[in-house]
């Protein structure tokens, strides 16, 4: 109550100043008049009474000032005055202000943006109701080189049926591309093929329509789809009437049954629709095909350890039941949060570090500017002190100025961050940040803002304290602001510059390492040529193509027709083109090598391909021959193997001409397959992932349970120009055949590198900013030094110093700072570059080329930054300099 009254009183004093002043005047005048009346009543004349009253009262103005003081009007007024004065000086030094504000704004915006993203991916709870109990379940096939393997449907079904630890388990099939046709322009959408219970496992519900039901998820059920909120809004104008409507997805009729809520994303922000998987009984019992993602909901209170023990027991049972397919395959669960941030954590942490560095450099720069300015203002401060300003008042005024600067920078940074974060989020691929945190994170913003304010205060106070201690007479006498600056200030500024250079070196070398890795990857020979190749998927509907002969006929005809299209160099079918993150593997027995123990058998990747596939992708034939038109069902079964497989399983002997069998049961008569050639390794799983043992089998002979799906077409021109013609040929063979994922093969390469590319370019731009700021820091220091020493330089020149000597002195001063900073930076960079290890490729963490290049580059930039003030020093006219006083 009293507090409220006090505050309202204070506010009135400050803002209704006119009224308050008038009242004060009235009050005192009343007093005087009353006294005069009293004096007259006591018998004085009017004139005497007046004079006596005035005398007794004392100075009216002093009394007023006393009252104002008591009301604290003075303090508040002084602050306003300081702010006004500060703004005026900042406006007058527009260049300085603009630079300082821009530097701070950039630093704050970069930091806020990166912090927001890091927070969304690494810290904030996942946006699913059951987040705490969600896990992903994986197969542990470490003995075959897949410690984190996608489970097979057979394993999934068994886990689901037998476990005692999960409330429910859901599965997602590989990410699909869906061609939306019918209403409006055809559009390619990203979607997921999921089991019907996925949303209930996650704890999510559609906001409109219904969830999938179990009967949506059986073979032959009516096709249904649930759309993301974004897709619904973008494509269907958020019309609630779409529920129950039919759309065409991959040329099949689908009924929209539900719309998810706005922020729902799973498994990443790219999925725009979900369709039930409708797995068949046979598929659900298949233990050989590993392609699922499995999400499970732990029963409340079940620890992860218990779940893992249970999974391991079940895995042992499955191993007994399917010794051929499941030998040495374990199972384990990983919390969903860990899973989602697993790949992105190191990349994001590196970016967070880089952003912090930029902010640090920005702060160092502003500090430097403030110090320089304070030193240049000694004379002004001296005059103000002489005219009676108190030291506190001078300090307060300088502090106000630096705080103003910091808040201007912080404010602009805030605007920049709000504007830049959606941009940055869209730049960052789902591979780095699976779930978007596209909104500005207020905590991050406040944090960086606070840092800028602290910088402003710290570096505002320090020079203020020093400068206000100036010896009045000396500062006034020396004038011009060219007096020797106290060595302490110079040293501090030198330290700041050295730190800036060091930080810039660290960032630049990180960026250089990333860029070199990226370059290596782009120039790396992945074993195939991705350019000028068109790919599309033609998954054959099972019912229609149940018989091997029918499938074979389809591939024969499509290849025949496409091969004759004008502009087609070669066309081939394959189960999976490289870099699709899919594949199959199967155990083999090699003739004359004895029967291996279960779990010891070689398990190479399997790709079932057409004759010309090797030629279409320009893979290298190392030995032997590729498939030819004679390889058919009637002739001996043949295979091509890659170099790694030849090396790994044939141990130096020549595999060409030898035989192996995919047959597992030793009692069965093996169906021998003869190796006719060795091809070069292809990086299937990722450009930076070395090849596994791999074999290629011709689809004409058998498909071994893997059916070719990807059609690849090589052309001399733009592959997309062929898309329509190739599609037409497919439809000429079967007009109902769905065609999906039509795109250049090069897209897969790009997609494979996008995370690295973004990381490299972000790090690169941070490093660029750092370099610029460091150069400006050095420039600022040297310019200041040159200005300070104009007189001294003049004397030297007058005494016969050569201009070149003068220039050398200045240059060497700048380069000395640089050398110190570079040494410091190099040491830190070498220590820190190990954190980048995971994203480096073909370049060591202490690559001399990167580090050397960075040091030379920054040396060049520094020399340039030194040159400008050095030239000014060289041109000092001794007469002018000496007469300047």
């Amino acid at each position, binding site marked *: 109550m009293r507090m409220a009254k006090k505050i309202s009183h204070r506010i009135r004093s400050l803002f209704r100043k006119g009224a308050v002043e008038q*009242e004060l005047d*009235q009050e*005192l005048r009343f007093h005087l*008049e009353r006294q005069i009346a009293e004096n007259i009543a006591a018998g004085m004349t009017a004139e005497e009474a007046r004079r006596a009253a005035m005398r*007794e009262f*004392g*100075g009216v103005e002093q009394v007023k000032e*006393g*009252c104002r003081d008591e009301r604290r009007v003075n303090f508040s007024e002084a602050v306003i005055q300081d702010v006004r004065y500060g703004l005026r000086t900042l406006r007058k030094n527009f260049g300085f202000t603009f630079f300082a504000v821009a530097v701070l704004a950039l630093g704050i915006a970069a930091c806020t943006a990166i912090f927001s993203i890091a927070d969304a991916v690494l810290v904030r709870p996942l946006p699913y109701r059951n987040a705490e109990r969600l896990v992903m379940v994986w197969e542990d096939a470490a003995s075959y080189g897949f410690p984190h393997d996608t489970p097979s449907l057979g394993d999934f079904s068994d886990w689901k049926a037998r476990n005692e630890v999960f409330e429910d388990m859901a599965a997602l099939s590989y990410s699909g591309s869906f061609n939306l046709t019918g209403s409006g322009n055809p559009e390619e959408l990203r979607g997921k093929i999921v089991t019907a219970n996925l949303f209930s496992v996650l704890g999510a519900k559609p906001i409109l329509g219904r969830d999938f039901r179990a009967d949506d998820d059986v073979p032959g059920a009516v096709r249904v789809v649930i759309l993301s909120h974004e897709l619904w809004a973008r494509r269907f104008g958020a019309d609630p009437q779409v529920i129950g409507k039919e759309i065409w997805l991959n040329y099949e009729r689908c009924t929209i049954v539900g719309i998810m809520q706005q922020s729902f994303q799973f498994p990443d922000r790219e999925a725009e629709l979900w369709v039930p998987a409708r797995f068949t009984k046979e598929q659900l019992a298949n233990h050989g095909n590993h392609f699922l993602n499995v999400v499970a909901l732990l029963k409340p209170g079940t620890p992860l350890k218990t779940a893992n023990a249970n999974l391991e027991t079940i895995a042992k049972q499955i191993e007994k039941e399917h010794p051929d397919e499941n030998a040495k395959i374990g199972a384990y669960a990983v919390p969903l949060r860990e899973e989602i941030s697993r790949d992105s954590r190191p990349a994001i942490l590196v970016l967070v570090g880089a952003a912090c560095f930029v902010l640090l450099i920005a702060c160092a720069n502003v500090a430097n500017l403030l110090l320089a300015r304070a030193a240049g203002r000694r004379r002004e401060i001296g005059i103000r002190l002489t005219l009676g300003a108190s030291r506190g008042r001078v300090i307060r005024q300088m502090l106000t100025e630096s705080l103003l600067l910091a808040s201007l920078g912080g404010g602009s940074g805030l605007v920049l961050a709000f504007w830049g974060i959606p941009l940055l989020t869209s730049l960052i691929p789902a591979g780095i940040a699976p779930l978007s945190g596209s909104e500005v994170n207020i905590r991050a913003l406040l944090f960086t803002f606070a840092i800028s304010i602290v910088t402003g205060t710290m570096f505002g106070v320090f020079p203020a304290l020093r400068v206000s201690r100036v010896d009045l007479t000396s500062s006034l006498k020396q004038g011009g602001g060219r007096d020797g600056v106290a060595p302490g200030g110079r040293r501090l500024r030198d330290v700041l510059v050295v730190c800036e250079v060091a930080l810039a070196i660290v960032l630049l070398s990180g960026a250089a390492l990333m860029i070199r890795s990226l370059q290596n990857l782009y120039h790396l020979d992945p074993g195939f040529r991705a350019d000028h190749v068109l790919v599309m998927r033609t998954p054959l509907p099972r019912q229609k193509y149940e018989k091997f002969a029918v499938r074979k006929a389809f591939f024969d005809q499509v290849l025949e027709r496409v091969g004759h299209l004008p502009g087609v160099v070669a066309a081939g079918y394959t189960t999976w083109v490289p870099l699709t993150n899919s594949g199959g593997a199967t155990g083999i027995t090699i003739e004359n090598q004895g029967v291996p123990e279960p779990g010891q058998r070689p398990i190479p990747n399997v790709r079932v391909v057409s004759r010309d596939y090797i030629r279409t992708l320009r893979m290298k034939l190392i030995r032997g021959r590729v498939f030819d038109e004679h390889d058919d069902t009637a002739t001996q079964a043949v295979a091509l193997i890659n170099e790694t497989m030849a090396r790994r399983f044939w141990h130096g002997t020549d595999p060409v001409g030898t035989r192996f069998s995919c047959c597992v049961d030793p009692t069965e008569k093996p169906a021998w397959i003869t190796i006719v050639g060795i091809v070069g390794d292809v990086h299937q799983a990722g450009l930076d992932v070395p090849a596994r043992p791999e074999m290629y089998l011709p689809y004409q002979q058998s498909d071994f349970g893997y059916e070719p799906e990807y059609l690849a077409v090589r052309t001399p021109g733009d592959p997309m120009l062929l898309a329509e013609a190739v599609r037409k040929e497919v439809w000429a063979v079967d007009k109902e055949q769905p065609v999906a994922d039509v795109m250049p093969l090069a897209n897969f390469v790009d997609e494979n590198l996008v995370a690295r590319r973004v990381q490299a370019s972000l790090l690169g731009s941070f490093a660029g900013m750092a370099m610029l700021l460091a150069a400006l820091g050095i420039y600022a220091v040297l310019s200041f030094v040159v200005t300070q020493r104009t007189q001294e330089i003049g004397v030297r020149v007058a005494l016969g110093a050569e201009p070149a000597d003068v220039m050398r002195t200045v240059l060497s001063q700048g380069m000395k700072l640089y050398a110190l900073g570079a040494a410091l930076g190099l040491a830190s960079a070498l220590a820190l570059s190990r954190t980048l290890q995971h994203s480096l490729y073909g370049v060591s963490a202490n690559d001399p080329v990167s580090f050397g290049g960075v040091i030379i580059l920054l040396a060049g930039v520094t020399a340039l930054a030194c040159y400008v003030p050095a030239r000014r020093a060289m041109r000092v006219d001794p007469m002018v300099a000496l007469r300047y006083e």
Partner: protein
Amino acid sequence: MSKPTDLVQGTVDLLILKTVALEPMHGWAIAQRIRQVSGNVLQVNQGALYPALHRLEQQGWIQAEWGESENNRRAKYYSLTKAGKKYLRDEQANWERLSVAIGLVLKTA
């Protein structure tokens, strides 16, 4: 513009509070009353009186209201607030304890 020392300031505050505790009063009347009641011993000069009034108002011990004076002029009347009454009680008790203590020291020493 020299400020009175703390003791003097505190004393003036106490005198003002005690005076306006009787009835709402304007500045001139407060000064008059203090002089009369103290038998012309205590004289609060205007340079101390008005800043003190504004300070006490600022602190919420007294409140001001414009009203008609005895000679039909607009004058600013100060009166004690509830918080001010309590404050006055406490301060008066303090003062009495202090003066008794000082008296004891002066008598015995």
